[in-house]
């Protein structure tokens, strides 16, 4: 015992230093290192949160500046050009109005694809559809009328607000009856609305000048059918379906 006391007395300073160093090491390992790690995590979380807040602020600004009337007008124009579904009614009525305007007679109209009457889930996108990224309804019409008027029909067909494309054109003149008969293979288009919208925390940019130009151009095309189009908002799922980790 005496030896121990003598040792302690002799090396008191070393022992105190040792204890302090041991305490510091334990404090560093147990307290400081986890504290730094927690702080680093907090800094990263704050940075992420700051980014989210900036995105939401920008998004709110964009949304507050959006004019719902203008949006509806653009959406109506866009959806009348390329509907969200096959809208065969508007297809037929547009062809009818187009040919009536040019005073030619449609003697036959037929859908060229079996899939045209199938449901969306039953359809397989063709290579061309995959390339353009839209759904195509191929159809053909037979028109009787002077070539000059038929020419106006094919010219107007790509300048109206139900988008068509003339894939091929065949004309024949019957010398006996004196009738010019034209067969037009055409494509109509439709694009289903997005099934879901993005997360609330996703960035939202306003329409660019280029996009607005396109919409203006589309709106400037004449709408030949008076058939009511479904406003886009009616078919869009408005509730976000993705779970936001920050949501309350």
């Amino acid at each position, binding site marked *: 015992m005496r030896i121990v006391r003598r040792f302690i007395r002799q090396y008191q300073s070393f022992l105190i230093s040792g204890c302090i160093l041991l305490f510091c090491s334990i404090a560093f390992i147990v307290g400081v290192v986890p504290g730094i790690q927690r702080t680093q995590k907090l800094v990263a979380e*704050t940075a992420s949160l700051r980014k989210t807040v900036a995105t939401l602020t920008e998004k709110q600004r964009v949304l507050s500046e959006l004019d719902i009337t203008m949006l509806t007008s653009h959406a109506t124009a866009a959806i009348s*050009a390329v509907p969200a579904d096959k809208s065969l009614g508007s297809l037929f009525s547009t062809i009818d109005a187009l040919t009536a305007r040019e005073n030619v007679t449609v003697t036959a109209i037929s859908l060229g694809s079996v899939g045209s009457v199938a449901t969306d889930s039953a359809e397989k996108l063709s290579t061309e559809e995959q390339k353009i990224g839209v759904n195509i309804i191929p159809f053909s019409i037979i028109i009787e009328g002077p070539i000059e008027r038929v*020419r106006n029909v094919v010219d107007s067909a790509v300048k109206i607000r139900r*988008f068509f494309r003339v894939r091929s054109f065949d004309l024949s003149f019957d010398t006996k009856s004196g009738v010019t008969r034209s067969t037009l293979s055409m494509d109509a288009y439709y694009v289903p609305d997005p099934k879901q919208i993005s997360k609330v925390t996703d960035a939202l940019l306003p329409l660019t000048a280029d996009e607005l130009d396109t919409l203006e151009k589309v709106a400037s095309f004449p709408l030949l059918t008076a058939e009511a189009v479904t406003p886009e908002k009616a078919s869009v799922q408005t509730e976000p379906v993705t779970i936001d980790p920050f949501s309350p």
Partner: protein
Amino acid sequence: MEDNAINLFQNKVTYSPKLAVIERYLRMTRSIFLLGVLGVGLLTLIVYGIFQFQQRSLETKRQTLYEAVKQDVTKEAMLIALRARVSSLKKIMTYQISIAPYIDTTLLIASPPQLSTFSLGDQNSIHIEVQSETVEQAISVVETVMTLTEEKKIKNPVVTSITLDKNGTVMMGFTYSVVL
């Protein structure tokens, strides 16, 4: 009563010179360590506190913005749907080409009833059949085709068929491409 006790032990421990140096360095080291741990700990605590405060403040702001944005979800849905549709519209518009110029150019060669058939096929190649009542008319059609080729309105003209029937009617088939 006066204390006459004498402390025979040395008050200060003396070390050998080597141990004294080590002891001095050890004192210094422990001070540095102590100050370091306390300093770093305190700094970490301050930084943590600042960011904790910031995070709470940002969280409150985020909640407010979240609610505001959720109220405009219809607008957002319309904008997203519209943007997707505009992208499709632009792609479709690049594929929409009027074939009227092809018909216009063909009408320069012949028009019904002289133009019996007209066919616009793949890669915008045109095949026509022209019926002429006389050989002179047929020659005139060929000359028109040649003139249009020289004027670079059509290219690669090919006469695919010539038929002369007993009535003297000439049926000629042409294939060509229109230069737009």
